[in-house]
């Protein structure tokens, strides 16, 4: 049996999650700073891939990254091809999983008491110090679960992937695509293996998420008062 879909899926999901993770945190921070109605529009735009059917998102990606597209055309002139390469699987996974990370991070940041930020400022702490010493530690559970959600979404991505990356064995064929192809070819036994692996990964993700959500950090424990 050809195990390449497993490795392609894992590689894609890991790379996509790393990109989404930092991009999501960064964007959430920036959007929270916008105080005008513009924030509402940007927020909607960043959430769009979550509510659109993945094939529709994939269609837009195809237009953007195709040889005649805005981005694709520029890259083409630089000798870089995106569509139907492994990079396309990563781009599809990033775009589809991004809203989950962005929304989780934003919700986690919003929960941090703004007075703590103000207090940090009046105590002479720089914005960077406030972010790393106060905001990040307090948002960590939400951010971690956002990362896990993004990873699970990335590894299961099908619709946008098939639109922009296609089904090229050993290059762009991920596990979800392999399942579809196996069923199409009436190879149910092969499909069962991939389904089993994906279910196992999903279960691990759920366990990890519950672990982060339920883990009461040590400072949240109420100790005995004197």
């Amino acid at each position, binding site marked *: 049996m050809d195990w390449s879909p497993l490795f392609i899926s894992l590689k894609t999901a890991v790379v996509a999650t790393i990109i989404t993770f930092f991009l999501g945190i960064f964007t959430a921070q920036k959007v929270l700073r916008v105080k005008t109605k513009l924030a509402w529009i940007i927020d909607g735009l960043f959430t769009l891939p979550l509510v659109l059917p993945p094939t529709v998102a994939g269609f837009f990606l195809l237009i953007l990254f195709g040889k005649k597209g805005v981005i694709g055309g520029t890259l083409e002139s630089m000798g870089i091809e995106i569509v139907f390469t492994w990079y396309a699987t990563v781009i599809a996974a990033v775009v589809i999983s991004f809203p989950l990370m962005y929304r989780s991070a934003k919700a986690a940041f919003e929960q941090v008491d703004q007075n703590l930020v103000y207090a940090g*400022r009046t105590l002479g702490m720089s914005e960077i110090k406030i972010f790393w010493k106060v905001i990040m530690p307090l948002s960590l559970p939400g951010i971690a679960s956002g990362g896990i959600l993004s990873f699970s979404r990335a590894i299961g991505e099908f619709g946008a992937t098939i639109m922009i990356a296609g089904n090229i064995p050993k290059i762009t064929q991920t596990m979800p695509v392999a399942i579809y192809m196996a069923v199409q070819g009436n190879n149910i036994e092969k499909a069962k293996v991939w389904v089993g692996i994906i279910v196992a990964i999903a279960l691990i993700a759920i366990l990890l998420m519950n672990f982060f959500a339920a883990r009461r950090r040590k400072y949240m424990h109420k*100790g005995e008062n*004197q």
Partner: protein
Amino acid sequence: MSLFVDIKKKFKGFTLDVEFNSEGQNLGILGASGCGKTMTLKCIAGIEKPDEGRIVLNDKVLFDSDKKINLPPQKRNVGYLFQNYALFPNMTVNQNIGIGVCRRKDKKLIVDKMRELLHLNSLGNRYPMQLSGGQQQRVALARILAYEPKVLMLDEPFSAMDSYLKDQLKEELFEILKMYQGEFLMVSHDREEIYRFCNKIAILDKGKMIITGDTKAIFNHPSCIEAARITGCKNISRASKISDFQIEAIDWSIILSTSTMVDENVKYVGIRAHDVRIATNQMVENLIEVDYVGLSEGPFEDSVIFKSTKGTNECNIWYKRVKTNGDNITQGVIPKHIFFPREKIILLR
């Protein structure tokens, strides 16, 4: 040491317009909820930006809209005790106290000294969630004092505390503030707190500074109706001048004799509930015939509510006295007359 503030900031249906100069005194800003007290502190700290004006702390300009100066909070060196203390929940007491210390070499020394000073010795490795409200407040103060601010601002320091603990904690805070050499600025809606802590007060009403001055003087002689209300004067009536020492209280429909001279600007007349007296005979001055409205019992003090027989309907007269078990009123003997001693009458603009 002095803090000069003159700022304006517009909000929807509300304009904050504050001007004061602490002149080295401990200033208290007294005002009802939502009058702009916290916003004033935030503007001084640099968390909010006023639309226009100037803020100067000891000759250092913190904000000046004309010269386009607006120092970030990090550069203002202002200590701000937040209403909810704003301790960092992910840091221990020691880490919280040390966070603002700039002299890194002496950090441990300073943290230890602050812990000692504020009676937090055994709590250094606890997290804020594991502390009581009073302990949290002391940690927040220790954190601010370790930062060595030029002015200390206290935002409703007792609003988050159980009332039965308040009195003791007030005294503790008073002792701590005595050790602190710099001046402080306190805002509160509680007149007793302000009276206890501050020798100068400013009264803020709907974003406007009504009056500033010596605390005791303003409590004894509030010169305008807003100041009288907020310092706790319960009985206020519209008034018009009759002669130099006589004034008509319109809502009570009575002509009162006063001991201070009535000037042309007097529009209201008031008397504190404590200063109202029950008339045992009808020979006294400033006698009012009253109807009994109700009794509002407190644990140690009772308020009796009257209404002038001839006065307008809505204008009650409150009479407050120390609780005495089984006196005439609680036994149902209702006085028909009360009087206002002339030296207790407050004339208001």
